[in-house]
């Protein structure tokens, strides 16, 4: 009784958007029963194709598409618990992206675009005809869910600009390499690569692929850097701006693209898939395979790195995916060796039901982390009240 009286108000939960996922995390999330079916891949292609067609119809620039697709992917992966149609999620994501990229369109215009893009001008249904009211309402309803999923964190990554800058910097031909790289960057959104990589890495991957397609070599890509430090981290790009780009991650992204070209079947066309034959891509894939063998790179660099980082950093790597105050513990706990898929999955997914307290969204991860560390002690003592969330998933979450 007195104990009860001593308990202050719930400090509320803090949610931060997870900006980057590793391949492993994406696989864990895709293992949800709803996403596991073989159809999921084609659904993804279909939806992104649709979004691309819609945005071209209403003349939205690439950056709006890029942002929208990122939101869609995140939503699809983390909100498998909800019942919704992927097409509604796509429209809602595009709608949110329009606002964020300041390319405003009415929700009805977006919904109408989904129907009108393949019709001739005479057959098109005007967006204000009343036919799209229901769809627009749906999109507005889902808008909130999308915003929650991205934690009101509106940063996004758009590699196209970086492609231009790097192509100019390396004096690459505009009509061949640049255009191909630009097309590849749009195809990239049909894969999960944008969730895993920085815009610099995505840009480099598109350029590397374009270089191979056009048989152009870039001296700075193929000579080993003399700088001891860069060599040590496997970095081979001499431009300062991309010095952070890990070669393994670039290759991973290139392979994500090549896998897409290999598997994407008509009618889910990709831009480069429409221009080059599958044989070309098979040949290019072999070439990249050789590169990876000589450089001793694994298919998925992002997962390996996470692991090694974790050892080095004592776990600070995944401090972004903590949903509950309790999860803040990790800096003090020792990490268990085995991967606990289930608890990891739980931590990655959005929390839909909160027992008590308010859910707050925070963009600054450091701040969120600090706050959770401060309140952790208070939670730790009251084991009985928080047992479900606190004790069980906590220590198991750290994977090695």
């Amino acid at each position, binding site marked *: 009784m007195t104990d009860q009286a001593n308990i202050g108000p719930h400090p509320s939960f803090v949610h931060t958007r997870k900006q980057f996922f590793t391949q492993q995390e994406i696989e864990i999330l895709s293992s949800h029963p709803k996403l596991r079916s073989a159809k999921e891949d084609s659904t993804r292609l279909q939806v992104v194709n649709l979004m691309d067609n819609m945005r071209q119809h209403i003349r939205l620039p690439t950056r709006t598409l890029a942002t929208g697709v990122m939101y869609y992917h995140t939503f699809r992966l983390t909100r498998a618990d909800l019942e919704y149609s992927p097409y509604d999620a796509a429209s809602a994501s595009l709608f949110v992206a329009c606002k964020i990229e300041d390319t405003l369109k009415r929700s009805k215009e977006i919904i109408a675009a989904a129907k009108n893009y393949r019709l*001739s001008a005479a057959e098109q249904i005007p967006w204000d005809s009343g036919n799209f009211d229901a769809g627009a309402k749906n999109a507005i309803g889902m808008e909130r869910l999308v915003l929650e999923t991205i934690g009101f964190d509106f940063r996004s990554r758009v590699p196209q600009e970086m492609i231009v800058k790097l192509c100019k910097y390396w004096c690459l031909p505009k009509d061949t390499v640049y255009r191909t790289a630009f097309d590849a960057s749009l195809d990239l959104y049909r894969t999960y690569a944008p969730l895993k990589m920085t815009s610099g890495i995505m840009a480099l991957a598109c350029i590397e692929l374009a270089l191979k397609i056009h048989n152009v070599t870039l001296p700075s890509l193929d000579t080993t850097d003399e700088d001891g430090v860069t060599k040590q981290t496997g970095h081979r790009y001499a431009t*300062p701006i991309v010095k952070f780009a890990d070669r393994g991650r670039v290759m991973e992204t290139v392979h994500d693209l090549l896998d897409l070209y290999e598997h994407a079947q008509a009618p889910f066309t990709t831009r480069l898939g429409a221009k080059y034959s599958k044989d070309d891509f098979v040949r290019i894939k072999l070439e990249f395979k050789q590169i990876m063998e000589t450089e001793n790179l694994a298919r998925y660099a992002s997962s390996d790195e996470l692991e090694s980082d974790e050892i080095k950093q004592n776990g600070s790597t995944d401090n972004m995916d903590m949903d509950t105050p309790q999860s803040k513990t990790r800096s003090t706990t020792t990490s268990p060796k085995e991967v606990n898929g289930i608890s990891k999955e739980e931590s990655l997914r959005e929390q839909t039901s909160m027992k008590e307290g308010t859910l707050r969204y925070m963009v600054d991860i450091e701040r969120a982390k600090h706050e959770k560390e401060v309140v952790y002690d208070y939670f730790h003592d009251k084991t009985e009240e928080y047992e479900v969330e606190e004790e069980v998933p906590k220590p198991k979450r750290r994977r090695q």
Partner: protein
Amino acid sequence: MPTAEAEAEWDAFEARLKFSTLLGSLSASVAAAQKAARFLMVNKHCGEDLFEVALEWLEKDDMNLRIKIWGIWEELSEMAMREQHVDYINRIRDNIQHFMDNICPPERPIAANIRIVRKGVERMHKLGLFSNTRAKELDEMLKHRTSSSQNPDLDAVEAAHKQDPGEEAHDMKHRWPNAFGDNKPSGAKRPTDKKQIEQRIEEDRERHKRLKESIWQIGNGEHEESDKMWEECSDIDEGDLMAAEDETSEMLGISIDELRRRFPAQTPVAAV
């Protein structure tokens, strides 16, 4: 399914009536122009009649209406070019001079209209409606009319727009009292009435919205967007480096200081 929902086709007589009503209630928004253009596309079979109707309406003594009808030609040329509807394309090509003479009459040129028509001609040229020489010729003609523009009323609106495009209507009345009636225009021209000017200010606000959209809208050409980006993108600079640092540190889950420790050799960007 889509055709069932689209506007129905009418016979020539009904189409004329319908189109007339449509023109009568035309607003300055893109949606309205598109609606009218779509009506023309749906009723291709009586295109000739509909063109006649539009030309009749163009003769009406309302400069605001005339410029709104110009919006229809812009939208129509885009739709017709996309579908390669030769009949409409030729009609627009043949009548362009006529449109221009009505919308910006040489004896009574209105700078506010000329500005819009020039932009429209440029857009049509980009669509491939006119040859380079023809587009240049039309532009020259409009330019010439701009310099000889003599309508003080609507020109005053134009001047006010230039001064401060976001100007509120009542402020404008205050600042440009002469634009709204009292002064007698030079020569034998009719005074443009106050209501028309106010209406025009409202409509220009609508057009302004469209102008804002055109900043980010992409074109129809396959390489148009990538080419535009190529032209507009600046060189690599300090800001890119900082953005890359931010992203990378977040991807690796390490602080920026830690990242800098790992990648110490930082060539100054300027030296690149």
